[in-house]
């Protein structure tokens, strides 16, 4: 018998595994128990004995199900038009306002949040985007944040309507109209939110998620993505951005920007109004609106390592702000009309979530 051993009991307690090292002193006490201790280990099926040399710092163990069965992925089409997850056209019916976190949602009883608009009950698609499926059991909800009803004028975030620089039906954000949503508090009203059910019966402990976001992002200046175009001193590169979106993740439904920032989502912008430029007015390198090309539709993959953090239940693509919202004259100086996500803004087309 070794002079010491590690007594390791797999116990699923929401955070993975509990690992306890028993010293020589403890071993003596256990040995005093004799047969009862042995029987205890037999009945605790996950009990293991290891030599001291096998002692390990258990960070990510295989407690619970590594991989759960069930639907492996789904797609939400971010449109309120025919075939979209948010159809019919009247969606959203109201602009959500701050409310208490409802029962059953992460953070219930701890505060309030700004809810978004959820897909129709029949708004979840298989990965081909055409076959409707039931909402997967590992998803509590998907929400998009709106500031205006669809069809409203001067709308920051909503489902688009016809317009030279708008995008009918798809969820879009027009920075020209987001001036009143510049602060971090209000900025939290513009987002795409995924709320997970981390029950390991539905989502295994060693599973991660892959988000595939199909979107178009357009900036004003090609040199505006973090540099100071006016030649002054930069005190914060984020404030020099035409638009900034980040991915946040958290354990509750509190404001997205108060959760943990995970990564930058935008920039990059994939098209710009001007090749270069300075100040808040367009220069000779800027395209005339009539000849302006829209940003390409791209799909970006975002790997969310949820296996590393069993408590994370909320994933949020969050608009943080932008130079246009803090300085509306900056956007209007470039000739961006109201409701112009294709001038400065973003148009989201679909969101796919995969278990990998």
């Amino acid at each position, binding site marked *: 018998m070794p002079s010491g051993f590690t007594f390791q009991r797999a116990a699923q307690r929401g955070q993975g595994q509990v690992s306890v090292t028993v010293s020589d002193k403890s071993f003596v006490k256990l040995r005093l128990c004799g047969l009862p201790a042995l029987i205890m280990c037999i009945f605790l099926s996950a009990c293991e004995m290891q030599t001291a040399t096998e002692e390990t710092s258990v960070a990510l163990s295989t407690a619970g199900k*590594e991989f759960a069965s069930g639907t492996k992925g789904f797609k939400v089409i971010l449109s309120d038009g025919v075939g979209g997850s948010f159809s019919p056209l009247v969606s959203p019916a109201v602009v959500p306002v701050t409310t208490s976190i409802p029962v059953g949602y992460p953070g219930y009883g701890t505060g309030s949040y700004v809810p978004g608009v959820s897909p129709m009950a029949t708004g979840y698609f298989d990965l081909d985007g055409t076959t409707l499926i039931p909402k997967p059991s590992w998803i509590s909800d998907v929400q998009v944040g709106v500031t205006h009803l669809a069809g409203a004028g001067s709308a920051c975030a909503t489902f688009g309507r016809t317009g030279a620089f708008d995008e009918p039906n798809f969820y879009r954000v027009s920075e020209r109209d987001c001036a009143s949503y510049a602060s971090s508090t209000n900025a939290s009203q513009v987002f795409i939110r995924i709320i997970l059910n981390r029950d390991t019966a539905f989502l295994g402990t060693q599973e991660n998620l892959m988000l595939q976001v199909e979107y178009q992002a357009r900036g004003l200046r090609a040199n505006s*993505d973090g540099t100071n175009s006016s030649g002054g001193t930069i005190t914060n590169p984020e404030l020099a951005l035409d638009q900034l979106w980040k991915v946040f993740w958290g354990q509750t439904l509190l404001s997205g920007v108060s959760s943990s920032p995970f990564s930058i989502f935008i920039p990059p912008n994939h098209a710009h109004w001007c090749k270069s430029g300075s100040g808040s007015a367009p220069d000779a390198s800027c395209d005339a609106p009539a000849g302006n090309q829209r940003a390409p539709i791209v799909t970006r993959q975002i790997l969310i390592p949820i296996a*590393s953090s069993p408590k994370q239940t909320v994933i949020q693509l969050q608009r943080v702000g932008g130079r246009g919202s803090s300085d509306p004259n900056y956007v209007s100086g470039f000739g961006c009309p109201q409701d112009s996500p294709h001038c400065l803004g973003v148009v989201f087309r679909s969101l796919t979530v995969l278990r990998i």
Partner: protein
Amino acid sequence: MKTFSKLIFILVLSGCGPSVDMASFSEVPATAVEHPGANEPAVRIIFHRDSFTNLEDFLSFQNTSFKCLGDMTRSYQVLGGDYSGVFGSSLNPIAFADSDTGDDLHPTYHPSFLKHVSVDTTRTYYAETVPATLQTDACSKRADSVPLPPSPCADFDPPISGPFPAPSPLLPSGTSPDPTPEPPSTPADINGLEFYRVRDPWCLGQGSVDPIDPELSKAYVGGVNLDLDRSKLGDREDLLMLITYQSFVEGDAWTYAMGPGDFTRLRVDLIATGRALDVLMNRPQPRVIGDLGEFSNALAPPILVKKIATLEDPFPSLKTESIVIPLSHNALIDRIRIERIRGTYQLYQIDLYRLGNRSIPAGS
């Protein structure tokens, strides 16, 4: 049988409960004592001068034989704020606790799977001071027969308004040449944000490939080493690396990033160095690979996975790139090297996440 089992179980617990007291269980494994981050499955590295050893700090604190310029002194939790907390625009990042500064080999607490982090540093000593009077000499090439001159090429951006570095010990008044570490005509800043940055035009002769060719002499310096302790990772574990940086394109006016000039290209390689922590920390700067750097050409460590990612941004953006590091494919990989091939860039943050130790492939 079930009832009998429960009965035995209760008897067992009641018999042993008093003996196995909590005091005994509090004796956690030694590895956890040495690495309080051992159970933290992710780490955030913020490349601000406050989190690394730089020339100015070296004169005042944490001056040990195992701590050289460019070595990380502080790392952060991923569930706190990010780099932008430095600007007050977001949540403040939450640092892992600093260890005793007298602890040479563990200058900072971080998850144990991360052995060490360092950046290439070319401003390694004050050229006008007396040789062998500064502690930094042990970490620089100053003792070489033909020492590599210090350069602002790869360093932490000093604040625009100063204070500017001062050599220490100071030379007597009237000494010629004037012991000013940086000629005033060569500004050492990009934007004064104090993050790690490499500015291409200042890198002449600092690279590791060819000291003669002007372009090549600027290449392959200004990279980052992320050294891993594979014994603290599962055999089947991979990592996710998120790198937040900004490339720049030199134009006629520096403040205009876009212009008819240079571009930035970074490359990510996976390397096997086999080196222990004390050796890693004791290497002179800059730690480029090649005869001029950390390894000689003849003894260069094998690059096991080359160009697992190439980063080049046509629109110089503040951005985050996501790269999966497939460690499970080769047990010898112990370094993630972010190699600067060319160009100017500023590095804000790198996050490493463990993707889970899997007994079977995902999706099975």
